[in-house]
């Protein structure tokens, strides 16, 4: 009950912010929320389950393109299109993870890098279906139950996505499955001796987080009402990795902090130092990893002035 109230309060506050912002800040706010949603699910995959995968943005893209194609080209009703999009993400995730997790973790990294590159090629060469390098444009979100979800109302949808992602992952993390994921990450051999099916645990964690990325992608599709290849490339996949590491991998609050800091940093820095912000970014990144492998949350936990 208490946690439900907390969730309602967070949703109310985050939504209220959406109603206060002008168009420019609304755009930044929405994208920040989407980065947070992605960082949360990537944190579970990378930080909790210990899988080095570079496909998170690919699934974000699969979700985004799938819903647009299914709604505009296949003419499916929105709920059906959304369901089909999730199913597609899960199937694709299984197709990647089942062979890759049988091998060493290194092969998952390779397989997901290949998938990420292939996806970009597919988007660029997809002709009518994907709109090629220009992507898909000039579509809009169909009304949902007679309500037009635009402006601040759509920001509420994104807030719901973030809270849903948070709650779902927090529950899983604090359950037998979260412990199994951490055990597999730390010591697969000992995990197996505890009765944990290592391959199965890895596949489920990968499919689950990939589906969450796909869900976020579906929500993203109607933020700009355009989807195009560059967004879903490797550059953003690496940024996501940095967000999780900087925040403190394995920690949900760390992911929120990491996503917020790294997404907003360029907005703060570029007026001050122009394009050098990329340099500052790199240096900050390096310092954090060297000083505290557990990221900003680790830095906080180990604060020297802490009274014991």
């Amino acid at each position, binding site marked *: 009950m208490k946690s439900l109230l907390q969730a309602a309060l967070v949703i109310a506050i985050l939504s209220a912010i959406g109603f206060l912002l002008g168009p420019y800040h609304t755009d930044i706010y929405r994208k920040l929320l989407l980065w947070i949603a992605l960082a949360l699910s990537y944190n579970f995959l990378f930080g909790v389950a210990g899988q080095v995968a570079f496909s998170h943005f690919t699934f974000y893209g699969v979700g985004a393109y799938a819903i647009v194609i299914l709604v505009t080209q296949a003419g499916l009703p929105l709920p059906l299109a959304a369901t089909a999009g999730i199913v597609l993400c899960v199937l694709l995730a299984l197709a990647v993870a089942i062979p890759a997790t049988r091998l060493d973790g290194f092969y998952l990294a390779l397989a997901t890098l290949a998938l990420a590159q292939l996806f970009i090629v597919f988007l660029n060469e997809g002709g009518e279906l994907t709109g090629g390098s220009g992507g898909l444009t000039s579509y809009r979100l169909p009304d949902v139950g007679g309500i037009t979800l635009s402006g601040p109302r759509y920001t509420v949808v994104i807030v719901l996505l973030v809270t849903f992602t948070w709650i779902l992952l927090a529950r899983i993390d604090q359950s*037998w499955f979260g412990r199994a994921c*951490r*055990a597999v990450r730390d010591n697969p051999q000992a995990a197996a*001796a*505890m009765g944990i099916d290592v391959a199965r645990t890895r596949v489920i964690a990968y499919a689950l987080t990939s589906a969450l990325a796909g869900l976020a992608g579906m929500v993203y599709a109607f933020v700009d009402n355009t989807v195009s290849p560059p967004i879903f490339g490797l550059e953003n996949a690496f940024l996501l990795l940095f967000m999780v590491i900087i925040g403190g991998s394995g920690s949900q609050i760390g992911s929120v902090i990491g996503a917020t800091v790294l997404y907003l940093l360029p907005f703060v820095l570029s007026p001050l130092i122009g394009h050098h912000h990329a340099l500052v970014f790199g240096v900050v990144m390096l310092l954090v990893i060297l000083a505290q492998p557990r990221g900003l949350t680790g830095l906080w936990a180990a604060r020297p002035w802490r009274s014991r």
Partner: protein
Amino acid sequence: MNNPPGTGSAGGPLLAVHELTRRFGGLTAVAGLDFDLHAGEVLGLIGPNGAGKSTTFNMIAGTLAPSAGQILLQGNSVGGLPAHAMAARGVLRTFQHNCLFAGMSLRDNVMTGMHVGLASNLLGVIGGIARVRTAETAARARADELLAFVGLADAREQDVATLSFGQGRLLETARALAGDPKLILFDEPAAGLAPAECERLTDIIEQIAARDIGVLLIEHDMRFLLGIADRVVVLDHGERIAIGLPEAIQRDPAVIKAYLGSTRGVPAAGGTHA
């Protein structure tokens, strides 16, 4: 003395291995091994370096598949099943070099050992249904009980990194017990322990056996083993050279020749590592 396959119901052995064999290329590490183990019994497995003890152990734990032969658990053939399936059937183990989950508290380590009992539909977890929450609360209480049993109750919230080697060994024992074992495999549990810790572990193993759990123990420390084992199997070059009561084993000429002839704890010639 061995029951034929399929007759391991009430009164039959908990574990029976028949003609168990494992080859590594041209090397036969375990050659046609036979023994059985009853519920509540402590069976020692000894032999010089390279005798095939760990290989035997790994086949029973499901880490290695046998090249030939049978492993029967309560009469059911389980040879070749993977480690997680063996754990699900109640065969749990500790590791020779502690294998704890770093970055987890002691309690979480023990709760991880309850995986098989706790694993349920993930949708129930996501939905936060009451059954999942009650199971989790009960598991937590049980973990604290087990930590108290091995004498680590005070440290339950601590990170495992804070433990000494001996405490880690005790934590592994609690974690194995968390899986509701029928059979526990200990790989050299006394190695690296201080005398007081050794006594504590002997006590714990005796209590485990008293709960009708079978215990299979690899050990180099003869004094430790002879004080605790009900029976002992002696391996040399992958073959069983003796089986019987500890006192009889100590006097067995073949054993003395292969193993006990040299200074205690130092294996006979043939397998000594630098």
